[in-house]
């Protein structure tokens, strides 16, 4: 999940009887699976929750370019370099689709980006881990984009129209990301040296648990999660999505000939799902609260990009003004 902890402002769910007539009409519309559009009436909490979730999601796409950007100049072949750049360009695009969806709610893009830079807005914890070897590019595509796909496929049915449409577009592009990642690992496992194979296992060992953390905390007793589900902003709970991801990923892991760093991972004949060990939640909250291995570096890099690009944006505005003026003079 690219938005792991979204505050809804709800302490508990309101019943239909407790709602104002407007709220009730809204909730009934959501229950009937009618999409909510920008000009429709919506509860303030719904609007705020969406702005938080969509901006977290957008920030994640944008910050998500950085761990991969690290390998553009180090990609082993030209083919891999082109693929990596295409993937990174997609992530930028996904960020833009999402910022656009967020703006339909009356939020300002610059303000939300400023919140990210001040550490007030979150983005997915996964991007605060370093990418140390080339196999990380494979593992990121396969596991991180894989986890994102599980989440985003479900979000295509989210109740807010512009968010849902952005998800449809993103999902269409995302499967290329996962397949190119898996293929990197497959090539290394099939044709690589012993050292290269060890790099694949090392990448999986480091990224496995952080990938599972992407789905966010357990949902029991979380009023935020319940409210988001009632508003159908979220469609499935964090734990359900995590289980789906594990169930579909383990066969792929076995095909690679690799293992997960989880001694408790095993197939459960009774439930028809994989059982797995407990996530280190202390680590999750540490990273989410700004104390992961790369948090500071990521935010500094984003700030630097915005600050050092300021003159380009100013020049573009000056140029547009000049052109407009010339056109008026000529008329």
């Amino acid at each position, binding site marked *: 999940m690219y938005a792991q902890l979204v505050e809804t402002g709800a302490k508990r769910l309101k019943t239909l009887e407790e709602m104002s007539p407007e709220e009730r009409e809204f909730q009934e519309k959501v229950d009937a699976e009618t999409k909510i559009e920008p000009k429709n*009436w919506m509860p303030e909490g719904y609007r705020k929750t969406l702005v938080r979730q969509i901006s977290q999601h957008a920030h994640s796409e944008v910050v998500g370019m950085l761990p991969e950007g690290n390998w553009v100049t180090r990609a082993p072949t030209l083919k891999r370099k082109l693929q990596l750049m295409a993937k990174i*360009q997609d992530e930028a695009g996904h960020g833009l689709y999402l910022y656009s969806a967020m703006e339909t709610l009356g939020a300002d893009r610059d303000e939300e980006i400023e919140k990210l830079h001040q550490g007030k807005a979150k983005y997915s914890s996964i991007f605060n881990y370093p990418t140390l070897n080339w196999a990380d590019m494979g593992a990121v595509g396969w596991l991180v984009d894989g986890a994102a796909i599980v989440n985003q496929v479900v979000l295509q049915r989210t109740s807010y129209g512009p968010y849902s449409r952005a998800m449809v*577009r993103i999902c269409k592009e995302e499967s290329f990301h996962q397949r190119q990642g898996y293929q990197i690992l497959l090539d290394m496992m099939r044709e690589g040296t012993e050292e290269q194979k060890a790099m694949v296992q090392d990448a999986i060992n480091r990224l496995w648990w952080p990938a599972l953390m992407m789905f966010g905390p357990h949902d029991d007793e979380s009023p935020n999660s319940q409210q988001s589900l009632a508003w159908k902003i979220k469609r499935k709970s964090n734990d359900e999505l995590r289980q789906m991801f594990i169930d579909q990923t383990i066969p792929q892991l076995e095909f690679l000939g690799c293992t997960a760093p989880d001694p408790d991972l095993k197939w459960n004949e009774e439930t028809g799902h994989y059982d797995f060990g407990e996530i280190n939640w202390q680590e999750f909250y540490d990273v989410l609260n700004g104390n992961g291995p790369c948090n500071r570096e990521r935010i500094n890099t984003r700030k630097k990009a915005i600050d050092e690009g300021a003159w380009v*944006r100013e020049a*573009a505005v000056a140029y547009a003004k000049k*052109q407009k003026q010339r056109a008026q003079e000529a008329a």
Partner: protein
Amino acid sequence: MSEWRLYEVFVRSKHGLNHKHVGSVHASDAEMAMENARDLYTRRSEGVSIWVVPSDTITASTSDEKEVLFDPSEDKIYRHASFYELPDEVGHM
């Protein structure tokens, strides 16, 4: 970027079809809006033609106007072909 105008983007996916709204972009002028729209919305041959329109020039109906605008057509069922029943002998018309 707030200084940059918002443009709505419409893409014709192939010849013979209508332009369809796909999203929006920020740009300092129409030319840049076109370039940004191309990079953002047609990276995988999604279109053969693009329109960019400043968002603030679009006049849209609101949900309050829904009844005024669209309800009158509800009781004009004689505007539909299915309103006119013909004998089977006439065949397909």
